[in-house]
């Protein structure tokens, strides 16, 4: 399984290290055509506006197609890119997640923080019919982070911090407003690799969008 990490700018190397640690083969993606070579993509933290400039119109369209076909996981700036609606200021999104997200919603760097939130995972009983959800504490690193202000239809909440949803999934798209790549806990990346594995095996076809 080859996982791409969008390497236009940002903390792509932290994601590469984490994914390799979990046994994935990683390709740093700098050109649109490299999207054809991978089974899943991570969009890292960084500056979302800079990502858009570097993607260009052609790269953006190609990525928009990709996120409908293959699993994609965005953290922070990556989450902003995957959203349908972006505020503060408004900018275009890939529309893979039916959410409204607000950039720099906590404030400036001085308001960045490490908090403990709750990770919601399916019970690891090995029984595929046991769909019980379990919450467990998870460290979350928020750096000039965005906030998910509205969760639309079809979006599942994967993690919360206080009353805020901070990680979500819709079909093949997954996003976190925090940076799991900067914490020692590997569960969030593992959840994404599980999503890629499921997608590749074709045992689950969670396509909810046209």
């Amino acid at each position, binding site marked *: 399984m080859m996982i791409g990490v969008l390497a236009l*700018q940002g903390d792509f190397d932290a994601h590469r290290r984490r994914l390799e640690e979990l046994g994935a083969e990683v390709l740093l993606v700098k050109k649109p055509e490299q999207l054809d070579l991978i089974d899943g993509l991570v969009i890292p*933290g*960084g*500056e979302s*506006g800079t990502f858009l400039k570097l993607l260009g119109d052609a790269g953006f369209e190609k990525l928009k197609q990709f996120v409908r076909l293959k699993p994609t996981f965005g953290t922070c700036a990556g989450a902003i890119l995957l959203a349908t609606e972006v505020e503060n200021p408004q900018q275009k999104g890939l529309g893979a997640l039916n959410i409204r997200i607000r950039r720099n919603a906590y404030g400036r760097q001085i308001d960045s923080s490490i908090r403990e939130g709750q990770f919601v995972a399916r019970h690891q009983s090995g029984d595929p019919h046991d769909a019980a959800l379990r919450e467990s504490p998870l460290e979350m*690193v928020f*750096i000039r982070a965005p906030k998910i202000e509205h969760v639309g239809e079809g979006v599942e909440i994967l993690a919360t911090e206080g009353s805020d949803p901070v990680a979500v999934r819709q079909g093949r798209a997954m996003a976190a407003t925090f940076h799991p790549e900067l914490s020692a806990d590997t569960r969030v990346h593992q959840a994404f690799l599980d999503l890629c594995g499921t997608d590749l095996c074709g045992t689950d076809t969670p396509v909810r969008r046209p």
Partner: protein
Amino acid sequence: MSQNNGNTTSLRLKTGLAEMLKGGVIMDVTTPAQATIAERAGAVAVMALERVPAQIRAEGGVARMASPKIIREIMAAVSIPVMAKCRIGHFAEAQVLQELGVDYIDESEVLTPADEAHHVDKHAFTVPFVCGARNLGEALRRIAEGACMIRTKGEAGTGDVVHAVKHIRQIVQEMKILTVLGEEELYAKAKEHQAPYELIRIVAKAGKLPVPNFSAGGIATPADASLVMQLGAEAVFVGSGIFMKDSTTFADPAESEKRARAIVQAATHYQDPKVLLEVSEDLQGAMKGLAVSGLDEAHMLQTRGW
């Protein structure tokens, strides 16, 4: 959550923002209009200044922290992080900048130093600091004081990349040497570099600095950005090179934006000469610049800092 000075949480958040800037270009700006151009061109952050280094060099006088009013206007104009410079050792300027809410402080040799022996105790702040360095010892002394990002000093305001190259090569080479030395030799290296042994040991083990390592000081073209990144820099600061035509006049804003876009592309595709050619092709030359080899020691900014 700003009550976490000096502990690990604080360090992780401070270096965390630097991680997000990797592969990007941080641009010097003096007006909200320039900041907007920089953001539109794809800058990952801007450095808010009253005068860019080339102007400071040309005009002389005491260079101080920029007026908070200008910095505030620039902060209001863009959604990307805003950095600002304080004088070396001037912790009161740094306190003002932290109060203002800038995202990063550059304790910079470009401004006239305020203390001839001491740098700012950066652990005492919640806001992260970047500091310049010419060699590994200087980089590690700054990290020991709490800097969460290192940039090469180069020679700011010249448009001549030669010392940015010299400094990144120096730092990278000194780190490589540490990786092959035995434990007992590291103590002697700590003495030689005048740096804390613990940091020497961390570098020897990792082969890199414990904080992001960027490049600055004379970068003026897309190829300059590619050069320092191929030599090991993780992002670039471009000062006078974008908005200046020469050391006293500003370039045409449209031309500046083109240069800015080209350097942003170059920082991402620094290993791809095809892209570098494409982005370099329609630029109408870079700032006139000042050859560093013609500068005498007294006019160098890089020798400031201890």
